């Protein structure tokens, strides 16, 4: 993992202590330290092992369905009357989102480490489903921690996880959302260090998770970069993705970070507005702090107590963000903007009607930003958006808001 300290590159991080600038690090209890160091050692071995990479690629192709298509959204482009809009179709992956890319990678690592039990946290349930899926595929028992609030609003995914043989443990601590599920998963891990592998679902947590999850998700950006070069003969002007913990975003961003003419835009959950408490915009409305093993932007009060976020989308409802995004923000390589619940909801409906694609509420946030930007851009300009997941899981939430009986 010898990152060359190339000062001209935005892709060299983290350093050997897991830092992206002041962000990242390893802020964990002593019980977990030996595990995290072992994980790092095994990950460093695996990523340079052609056998590991071969297995990863093979499962990617035949189990996940990679490469995912790059799709020119012709009617949406016409409708908005500006930049050409391309979607990276991660929603077509097995299990319906980008989450599976990371899960396949990490379960291969878990097997390599001889771990016999998988735990995971989940918000929207997409990562829980992806974890339960790979656990079934590799014959390992799986426990998924999920906030009680999320268990309720993502009922179809809870059922999926159970069908796949996972045990779903509702977490009632705090507000019963993603951060509480993560606390509970960490508690499980410190208790069952010997046999358990913690399959973190986003590019956050202690080093090496942010780097490792990014590397598993960077397949999105690598493919998209090739595909757009093939389709258009040039790179996009803007790359846009929704940011919860930040894994689908860093996955598509990373391969473009050194293409200095490509603007990088992360979309945070603006919830009901940034003036109040009901949002989840860690960078736009938070400040740096330490939670879940890393230093990063957080929603917190003046005493350093972490606040509960709010978003219409359970997958964005996390009061932190992966450390690499915090760094990209501070050095000015990427910009982060909020999108409100109602804007995401409108985008969700527009895409469904105009392109026949029901997006998840998370990428609907990215789409709402596309809808704002595209009309102001020239017809010869290109936007690439990560369509990170499909919306089947969200139809009940949306139906309820739109006043439809399902």
């Amino acid at each position: 993992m010898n990152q060359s300290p190339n000062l001209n590159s935005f892709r060299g991080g983290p350093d050997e202590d897991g830092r992206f600038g002041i962000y990242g690090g390893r802020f964990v209890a002593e019980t977990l330290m030996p595990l995290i160091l072992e994980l790092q050692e095994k990950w460093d071995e695996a990523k340079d092992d052609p056998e590991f990479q071969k297995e990863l690629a093979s499962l990617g192709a035949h189990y996940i369905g990679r490469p995912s298509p790059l799709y020119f959204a012709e009617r949406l482009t016409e409708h908005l009357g500006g930049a050409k809009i391309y979607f990276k179709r991660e929603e077509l992956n097995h299990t319906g989102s980008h989450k599976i890319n990371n899960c396949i990678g990490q379960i291969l690592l878990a097997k390599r480490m001889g771990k016999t039990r998988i735990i995971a946290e989940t918000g929207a349930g997409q990562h829980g489903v992806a974890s339960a899926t790979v656990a079934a595929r590799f014959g390992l028992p799986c426990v998924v921690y999920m906030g009680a609030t999320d268990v309720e609003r993502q009922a179809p995914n809870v059922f999926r996880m159970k069908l796949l043989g996972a045990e779903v443990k509702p977490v009632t601590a705090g507000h019963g959302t993603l951060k509480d599920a993560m606390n509970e998963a960490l508690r499980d891990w410190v208790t069952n260090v010997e046999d358990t592998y913690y399959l973190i679902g986003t590019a956050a947590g202690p080093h090496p998770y942010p780097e490792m999850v990014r590397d598993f998700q960077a397949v999105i950006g690598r493919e998209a970069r090739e595909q757009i070069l093939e389709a258009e003969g040039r790179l996009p002007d803007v790359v846009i993705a929704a940011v919860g913990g930040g894994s689908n975003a860093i996955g598509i961003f990373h391969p473009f970070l050194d293409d200095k003419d490509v603007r990088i835009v992360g979309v945070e959950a603006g919830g009901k507005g940034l003036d109040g408490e009901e949002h989840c915009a860690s960078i736009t409305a938070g400040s740096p702090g330490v939670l879940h093993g890393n230093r990063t932007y957080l929603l917190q009060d003046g005493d350093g107590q972490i606040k509960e976020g709010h978003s219409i989308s359970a997958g964005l409802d996390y009061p932190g963000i992966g450390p690499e995004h915090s760094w990209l923000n501070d050095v000015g390589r990427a910009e982060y903007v909020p999108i409100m619940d109602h804007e995401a909801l409108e985008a969700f409906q527009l895409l469904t009607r105009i392109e026949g694609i029901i997006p998840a509420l998370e990428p609907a946030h990215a789409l709402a930003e596309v809808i704002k930007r595209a009309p102001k851009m020239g017809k010869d300009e290109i936007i690439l958006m990560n369509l990170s997941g499909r919306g089947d899981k969200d139809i009940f939430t949306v139906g309820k808001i739109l006043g439809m009986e399902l």
Partner: protein
Amino acid sequence: MTARMDRRFADLAAEGRPALVTYFMGGDPDYASSLAIMKALPKAGSDVIELGMPFSDPMADGPAIQLAGQRALRAGQTLAKTLQMARDFRLEDADTPIVLMGYYNPIYIYGVERFLNDALEAGIDGLIVVDLPPEMDDELCVPAVARGINFIRLATPTTDAKRLPRVLENTSGFVYYVSMNGITGSALPDPSLIGAAVLRIKEHTTLPVCVGFGVKTAEHARAIGASADGVVVGSAIVNQIASSLTANGTVTEATVAGVEALVRSLASGVRSAKLAAAE
């Protein structure tokens, strides 16, 4: 201020018995009652006080301490108030070492320099910050030790021989051996295993080794105390407080009295451990 901690352990060594280290959550269930509990601890036989700093996301704690933290935060406890509690306590007790225990973020937000200044001035002797392993020593440990505040580290069953020297490197005051992998409030493991683990740590350090996680009764305290320099009791005290409260979490007559009785009993446990150790 290191002196106060060293003196306390030296005195206890001379007495030939282990220390009783008691943990409670600052501000649980409210500031005044919590201060009264703190004042009662040494009178009931506690030798070292661990003052918990509440945090919204206590990742290494079980339900008892999670709930205590939530009660304290609901009652308006902040890091500034926890420091004030130590200051108030020091007005009448200049000898009992106080260790602040909690998570890093509230300290980071308070500001490390400002925190160390205020902690020294409040009469704090040591810090236990759960989510700052040796790899993160530059954050708080190194500046704290430079200012004469002990940085007490947790060693656990996963801390192997290779890692132990690293863990002990900047540790001072005492070593807190967490006798099992897990969260606070878990069951007590086999005392004979603990004795072996304490000896293993003592091969690498001359610091006192205190053992915690799972100690609930005088009998536990005696059994563990026979093979350690101190016994740490946390969840049992916090549970005692919780069980004394009204349904909506307010203090009752039984709150301080209950803690006093429990600590008195635990204190008799460590005092009888002296005999066990001498056998």
